[in-house]
């Protein structure tokens, strides 16, 4: 029945020929069908809501998410710093279910069958789709840090780079650490999720130490040759606020760890910490990585920027941190939300037998706390460029804060409240 409908739309599209190409009918064309969304983070939750909202209920949406509630990575560094709680960064999926009519299933996807257009669930059973959206975030490349391969090692040396139990566990490690101890955070080579995030975390842990454990130290072991994001503003904060507390080391790639002694092993050096926080290199989340989609550097999914579809498997759209990003585009929650809207608009056109819009625009804002109150931002706007077939940053637009300030500290919390509502309620 659903297939018949789709064919009818295609017929109308063909009959009206040039008109359809001009989008003459898109406003009146009704999209229908079933979209399965895998992953209920910033990208997946957004597209689930927007597909339902913009189709006025015409498109059925199933969201498959392994966690019972949404827990935000942005703002989670404030939980680690001690000024916010897990409750502050947790939002229910009830809004998507009850207000927007999204079918939310708590499960994992075991496999995708692109030829049959079905997915199978870990708990058993399969489901067919007209279009599939994968928004799986990232998974870690444990092979790059061999000492961290076991679950036991991973429970001792934390990443806390996915908000949830690890966020709580890292906070506990910091609380248990004696005054005079050292916290070390390692940053993988770019690209990685949330470019300014590790520097923000270092600031917030230093802020906590300054107030509660003043003899303690923070050391950043950065695999990159320089600070990746908001360099001037972070370095000013470190000099002004954390002199003697926070130390930055560049070209300090963690190659392995010795779990028993809590030691990071660098190429020519070792670093023993009381709390060792290793963010391993990451890649597209497992389900996107193993489903046969074309990858770049065997890590990130190659997508078509007009629809966010995989370049090798049309009909499968990939959002958020899992994709190979456009030039200067960060892997951020804000950007994943924008991907969700771009793909929602494209999918609704496609389900109505039309082409995606030829002029998509996405933008990013990212706020980082340098202490519990003061914030610095980076912003950018990206417009589609037909010549390079990607979204390009607009020259002269975007930028960073003039200086850290408390006003943006309030704006950052306002941003979180609004984006969570934009995704989930």
């Amino acid at each position, binding site marked *: 029945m659903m297939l018949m409908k789709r064919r009818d739309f295609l017929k*109308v599209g063909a*009959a*009206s020929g040039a*008109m359809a*190409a*001009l*989008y*003459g*009918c*898109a*406003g*009146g064309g009704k999209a229908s069908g079933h979209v399965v969304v895998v992953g209920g983070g910033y990208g997946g939750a957004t597209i689930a*809501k*927007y597909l339902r*909202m*913009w189709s006025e209920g015409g498109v059925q949406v199933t969201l498959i998410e392994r966690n019972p509630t949404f827990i935000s990575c942005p703002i989670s560094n404030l939980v680690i710093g001690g000024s916010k709680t897990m409750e502050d960064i947790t939002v229910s999926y009830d809004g998507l279910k009850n207000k927007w009519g999204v079918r939310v299933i708590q499960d994992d996807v075991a496999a995708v069958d692109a030829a049959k257009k079905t997915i199978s669930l870990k708990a058993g059973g399969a489901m067919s789709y007209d279009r599939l959206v994968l928004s799986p975030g990232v998974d870690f490349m444990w092979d790059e840090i061999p000492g961290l391969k076991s679950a036991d090692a991973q429970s001792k040396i934390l990443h806390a780079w996915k908000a949830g139990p690890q966020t709580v566990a890292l906070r506990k490690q910091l609380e248990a650490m004696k005054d005079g101890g050292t916290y070390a955070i390692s940053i993988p080579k770019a690209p990685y999720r949330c470019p300014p995030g590790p520097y923000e975390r270092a600031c917030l842990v230093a802020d906590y130490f300054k107030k509660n454990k003043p003899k303690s130290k923070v050391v950043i072991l950065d695999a990159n040759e320089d600070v990746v994001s908001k360099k001037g503003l972070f370095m000013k904060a470190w000099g002004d606020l954390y002199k003697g507390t926070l130390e930055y080391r560049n070209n300090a790639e963690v190659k392995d760890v010795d779990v028993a002694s809590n030691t990071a092993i660098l190429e020519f050096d070792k670093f023993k910490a009381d709390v060792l926080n290793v963010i391993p290199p990451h890649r597209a989340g497992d389900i996107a990585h193993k489903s046969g989609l074309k990858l770049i550097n065997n890590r990130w999914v190659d997508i078509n920027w007009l629809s966010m579809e995989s370049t090798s498997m049309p009909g499968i759209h990939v959002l958020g941190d899992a994709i190979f990003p456009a030039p200067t585009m960060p892997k951020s929650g*804000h950007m994943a*939300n*924008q991907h969700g*809207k*771009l793909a929602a*608009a494209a999918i*609704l*056109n496609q389900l109505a037998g039309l082409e*995606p*819009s*030829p*002029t*998509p*625009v*996405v*933008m990013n*804002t990212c706020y980082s706390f340098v202490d519990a109150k003061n914030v610095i*931002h980076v*912003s*950018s*706007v*990206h*417009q589609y460029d037909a010549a390079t077939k990607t979204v390009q940053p*607009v020259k*002269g*637009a*975007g*930028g960073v*804060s003039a200086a850290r*300030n408390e*006003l*943006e500290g*309030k*704006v950052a*919390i*306002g*941003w979180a*409240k*609004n*984006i969570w*509502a*934009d995704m989930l309620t």
Partner: protein
Amino acid sequence: MKMLTTVATVCLLAVASAAHAADPNLARNLAATCANCHGTNGNAVKGSGMDSLAGMEKAKTLQKLADFKSGDKPASIMHQISKGYTDEQLDLIATYFAAQK
């Protein structure tokens, strides 16, 4: 066939009124890029400190955006973001928000 003719007429009217071929949902899509901070369809979360744009008079929104672009209106971030959109795009965005409740 009759329905197709009707649809075709509506389509041609829509095309005739547009300067160039564009997705008729372009204004909606562009306005959605603002929703992360200003709320879905411009309805910001109450008490969040962010400006609600829903129902704001088009001329007022456009004036604000022009002042952000020129630097006449001081801003923490909007002076940077407004420069990323063309005047035509800002016009579509302002029109869309003016029509929202």
